[in-house]
């Protein structure tokens, strides 16, 4: 060994190979941090829209407008699903009032933006305020009625909301002209960016909540209310919190829905009906009720898969109900055999792959002692 080589070995006492593995490790560690995962996810989502807009300007189709539109609505439904995952997966409260809560958001947006002409941020705050009131109300109901009964009561509540909204105004349309968003006049692209940002914020809040004392208290409450109470967890506090949060998420999604799609015919559309609540529940179940990425995947299967990727398949355009049939089949299969949903499947896959790799290595190099 020459003296210079010796010096360098002394100074940083790591070979270039070690350095490389260390930097890979640090990248891996950073990728495991949820926040950076969400930011990467957001960048991808925004890049897709930017590509699509670029294509529009150059008059070529890089990404179809219908694809982006379907992606936007899938992201809106994802907000609802994440809120519902907090309710079902963590607090163990089965609610079927989701559709009504989305309706509240949509109508708040309609009245604020169209009738009263206030800025969109006021619309969001107003929707949040209304949904906090409703969430507290449902939370109190959930203290008195539990389990399957609660699902039916919230279903009744959703019917009340739907009929009430319908009695207030049968069809709502928003004509976004005077609203300024991100310094430019509002259009579908800017609303899409807003949706991505709101979704990321919600994901971040949720993942922090899950890993905090609040999330653990909710899990304890799910597993046994009596045991949780014995450990000093206030049922009232956490049930109210769970309902308020999930109602807020759904109402935010309703506001975004109105800003993005701009028109709902309340009596005709299925948006505020039982079907939506069931679909959201299905999405959460298929994805795995305890994992945010799983829930996103489930929502994608329920809402995004067919309009985004299968819109050109002739068989499916001729038989639009086939995808409903398929999702129903999938829900039944998942509940029968994989109660943890897609998230559990991925986990199982990971374990199997790592076992396979280990076996292959053992075959090649012999067993390590």
């Amino acid at each position: 060994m020459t003296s210079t080589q010796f010096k360098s070995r002394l100074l940083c006492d790591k070979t270039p190979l070690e350095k490389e593995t260390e930097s890979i490790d640090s990248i891996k560690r950073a990728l495991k941090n949820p926040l950076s995962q969400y930011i990467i996810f957001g960048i991808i989502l925004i890049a897709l829209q930017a590509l699509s807009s670029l294509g529009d300007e150059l008059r070529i189709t890089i990404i179809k407008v219908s694809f982006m539109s379907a992606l936007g609505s899938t992201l809106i439904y994802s907000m609802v699903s994440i809120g519902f995952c907090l309710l079902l997966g963590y607090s163990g409260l089965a609610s079927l009032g989701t559709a009504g809560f989305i309706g509240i958001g949509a109508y708040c947006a309609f009245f604020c933006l169209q009738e009263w002409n206030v800025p969109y941020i006021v619309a969001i705050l107003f929707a949040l305020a209304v949904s906090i009131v409703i969430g507290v109300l449902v939370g109190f109901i959930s203290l008195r009625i539990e389990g399957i009964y609660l699902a039916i009561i919230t279903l009744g509540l959703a019917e009340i909301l739907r009929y009430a909204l319908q009695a207030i105004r049968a069809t709502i349309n928003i004509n976004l002209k005077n609203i300024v968003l991100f310094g430019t006049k509002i259009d579908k692209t800017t609303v899409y960016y807003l949706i991505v940002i709101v979704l990321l914020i919600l994901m971040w809040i949720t993942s922090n909540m899950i890993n905090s004392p609040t999330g653990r208290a909710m899990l304890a409450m799910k597993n046994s209310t009596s045991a949780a109470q014995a450990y000093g967890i206030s049922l009232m506090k956490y049930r109210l919190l769970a309902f308020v949060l999930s109602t807020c998420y759904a109402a935010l999604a309703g506001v975004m829905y109105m800003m993005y799609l701009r028109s709902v015919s309340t009596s005709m559309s299925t948006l505020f009906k039982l079907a939506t609540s069931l679909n959201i529940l299905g999405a959460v179940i298929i994805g795995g009720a305890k994992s945010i990425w799983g829930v996103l995947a489930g929502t994608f299967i329920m809402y995004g898969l067919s309009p985004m990727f299968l819109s050109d398949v002739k068989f499916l355009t001729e038989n639009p109900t086939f995808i409903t049939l398929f999702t129903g089949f999938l829900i039944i299969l998942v509940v029968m055999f994989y109660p943890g949903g897609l998230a559990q499947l991925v986990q199982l896959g990971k374990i199997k792959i790592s076992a396979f790799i280990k076996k292959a290595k053992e075959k090649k190099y012999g067993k390590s002692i």
Partner: protein
Amino acid sequence: MTVFDNLASTLLGSLPSISVLVLATLAVTLIFKTSYTTNFAQGVISAVGSYLVMELMLFYRVPMYIGILAGITAGILIGLFIDIVIFRNGRYVNAIGKQIITMGMVSLLVGVIPFVFKTAGLEAVYLMPMVALNKYVVLSKNIAIQINSLVYFGISAVIVTVVFLLLNLSKWGLGVRSTASNEQVAGMLGINTYVITAASWAIAGALGAVSATMYAGFNMMSNSLFMTTIQVNAFLACILGGFATFYGPVLGAVIIPLISALIGFTAIYIPTLSTWREVLVYVVLLLLILWKPQGLFGPRAVRKV
């Protein structure tokens, strides 16, 4: 028209809804008692039955009673399929899992109906009512009642009576009652709970098919989910009456249309109420349920740790 005439005709007008709702509620209760789950697919299973009746009558010119028999058979088969093929083969199926499976069944059947039935593509079809809707029995100068709704009420009263007699007197009924109070112990005492549960699903399917066929006689079959309102009301009726007994939910199913009719009656004098009718009905129900969470006819629950 006097106040009494108005009241009498609105109350009589709710007879068809009562007849349909009672059958649907009985079906939901039977399944809840034996399988410990709420069957969200009840509405769609019933819809399959009524679509089959419609299909046979429209395209194959089959007389109505044979059509209804076929519809009932379809309901029974689907009920048996859910219980025997799905519930028993699931590896991790618990109460909530069963509930979610029935929700999956809703999607599955909603997807299947347009493939199988040509009539599902037609928009807004009425199934022929059993007796023409314009035939009336005149009770007094201002009150008349459709013969059709009397027929419905008669059918539903007969069916409910038969089911209750079966529940109270037959061996199956004894089995259902013991399975309802404790499935494991019933099994240990030599009751074949599998057969009991499967029979309950079959009867629930049949009840559903009859109720949907009746409902389609005075309401549009606009799409495969046309029974959803009835189903939601049936659930609420069950909770209103209390799942603890069999007669409670049935009485609940009579009360809900009556509340609706009473609000409709008040709306004759206060016209603004008519837009808010459904809202008021559900608010009243919700308040009643919050007042008595165990149901109007249920016992007080004792919570054990």
